[in-house]
């Protein structure tokens, strides 16, 4: 640890409005275009009203980084985000298999895996979410004592949790 403050993006799915402003600012920043399917944060809506912004949880043990056969993934010293070396990455998909939340995905038109880089420490998605007063995404100080990996979950599993929370157990059938 370098001793500087790192951030982690907390997610409150029940507060997500489904406006997808996070996808817009993320893709504009990383791709220069509005491109939902290339956004590092992707909002899944498997059931209406149950919107799930899906993005890297920066697990403390980084299984994706370990799984990469070509050393294309690394952990940023500045932010502790996972960085993808686009030149080295072969889009083999091993990082996706290794991720407990199946968060990474292959870029729709390029040959590399896409993973949230925390915008260098000031995530634009969080800013966009706060501007609208939704606060579904918020930055926290990343403490060594916390197991952020618990948040690396598949959108299907999160959806079932949020259905139960918002609609009630019986609505799980709608998924």
């Amino acid at each position, binding site marked *: 640890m370098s001793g500087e403050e790192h951030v982690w993006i907390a997610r409150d799915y029940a507060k997500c409005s489904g406006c997808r*402003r996070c996808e817009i600012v993320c893709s504009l920043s990383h791709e220069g275009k509005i491109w*939902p399917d290339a956004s590092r944060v992707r909002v899944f809506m498997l059931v209406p009203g149950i919107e799930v912004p899906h993005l890297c949880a920066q697990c403390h043990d980084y299984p994706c980084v370990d799984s990469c056969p070509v050393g294309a993934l690394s952990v940023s010293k500045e932010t502790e985000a996972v960085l993808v070396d686009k030149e080295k990455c072969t889009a083999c998909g091993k990082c996706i298999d290794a991720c407990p939340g199946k968060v990474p995905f292959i870029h729709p038109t390029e040959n590399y895996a896409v993973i949230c880089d925390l915008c260098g420490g000031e995530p634009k998605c969080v800013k966009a979410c706060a501007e609208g007063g939704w606060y579904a995404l918020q930055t926290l100080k990343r403490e060594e004592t916390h197991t952020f990996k618990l948040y690396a979950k598949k959108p299907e599993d999160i959806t079932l949790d949020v259905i139960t929370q918002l609609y009630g157990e019986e609505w799980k059938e*709608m998924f």
Partner: protein
Amino acid sequence: MLGYAGKFLDVDLSTGNMKEAKFDEQILRQYMGGRALATKILWDRLGRRWEEIDPLGPENLLFLLTGPLTGFAPGGRLCVSGKSPQSNGIVGSTVAGEFPIELRCAGYDGLIFTGKAEKPVYLFIKDSDIELKNASQIWGKNAKETLKVLVREGRGELESRYKGKGLWKEPAAVYIGPAGENRSRIAAVTAKWAHAAGYGGYGGLMGSKNLKAVLAKGTGPLPDVADMGKVEKIIDLVLKKSFKSTTFRRWGTGAAGYDVGARQSSEPVRNWQEEWHDEKSYGANEFEKFWVKRFWGDFGCPTTCLKIAIVREGPMKGAITDNPDYENQAYLGPNLGLFKPEENIYMTALIDDLGLCGIQGGNILGFAAELYQRGILAKKDFDGIEPKWGDVKAFAALAELIAERKGIGEVLAEGTYRAALEISKMKGVDVMPYAIVSKGIAIGAHGIRSGEDYPALESYVCSVQGGDHTSTAYLPLDHENSELRMVLYDSGVFCWFNFFNKEARDSLWDLIEAVTGWKISAEEWLNIIARRVLHIQRAALLLGGPDLKWTPRRHDDIPERWYEPLPKGPYKGKAVDRAKLEEVRNEYYEAIGWDENGIPKSDELKRLGLDDVDKRIEELRRQVRRSGT
């Protein structure tokens, strides 16, 4: 072409043939997209035989169109159009959701369907991989069940066909419920459970084509634009202004279920017999108790005016829908004598599930209840149902009959105007005075008698979309509520609720330029582009269809009831003055370029290069002259 994905898809459902369609830049600059472009294509393809085309026949076209601003102007929408099964004219009906974004990201600006599939089908689009698929497993299913199966099948298909890319986000869908399948003229094209393109009756048109749904997944970006930096700046401006409309963000249109009645006296109460109520049980504060999500919206929307409501206990238990919004609150609430939020949420969720339009559906339920109240229709006419004001279960049962076209539902599924004609014949009593419609389209839940609401005397009588409260005719023609401006929102295609602020609204011309590179001024829009669209829509409306036609001028009128004084409330006694209405109507004709019968003038059409429209309606002018109306 900047701002456009660049191609449209023509789908012939009779043969299964699909081909890409492209339009010249000149056509797109003149007709942009959505409502305007649908009007142009409809006229070009069907205009010569317009009167003969049955809107529910295979020849009619169904459009699902975006516009160049869809995805860029905050709050993208999809425009659904075709020859309207309600008016026999053309209606641009829009619905929110991610479908238009997915479609543009897949490389298409729109879809045009013709013909009729032999068996129920749905169209699945994954970029340029497009397939018509069997829909027999979802035919007959309600909206929520339909969407559940579509999301499952769609994702399953993506996961199995395109392996190794990671998890697939669900494709977006538009679909119809049982009402649409049964070709009801008051069925909507719906999305995300609670979103609907209701005006026009395009759910019935979609059903007549045996098309249950369309699913789209686009993996590309939105189209290239002329100046992305400028687009971003304008988006930021619109966001900033929208974030400031704090009350609207808090309640959406759903604060109005109490206020429009109590404060403005312009809400339908018991089929418009009254327009005032002071039922505090129907306040926004009472609806809030049912919310489980305070902000709900669609792609790029800063306002997120929707709220998700659920009833957790009591006889209405299990109903989920958005807030409801004002139109559903009014039409499926006070209009039926219902003043409890949970009953309104229940009715709205049911209407969603059946695939009916909340406005058209609520309008006809109220109409039926008034005929019951007056003893014109009896219990036996309703298969044992007694639609008494305030009886939520009776209205729910009747809505189901309508969606299934069973018993009296067969008549009512035709919409209020046609049902009124039929019932008048059946019973030998003229029931048209109780039909609150304009040109076959139920009038939105904003009355004009008190003079306190936004629609003006000319709004519904001169609109080319009849009772559509989102496309109101208005003087002066450059007014913010003018139908000429509504054409921009429906052709852009985006939600004008993010453009209430004047500075945001004025930025639209810059946004059009930043997206498409075209310099279009407000003046050009109001005097030329939108004018062309309204004239074609007006011509089509007057030419009519095989089952009914509108008589110029005579049908440019309000429901008889609105000439009667308001019976109660602070605006008691106020009514529409017939002479004043006629005066304003004539002023509107003159301002827009229509003759004394409301027929577009020859020199006006020629000025706009619409010589073919001029020739087509010459016969209509002669008929009117002959009959001396």
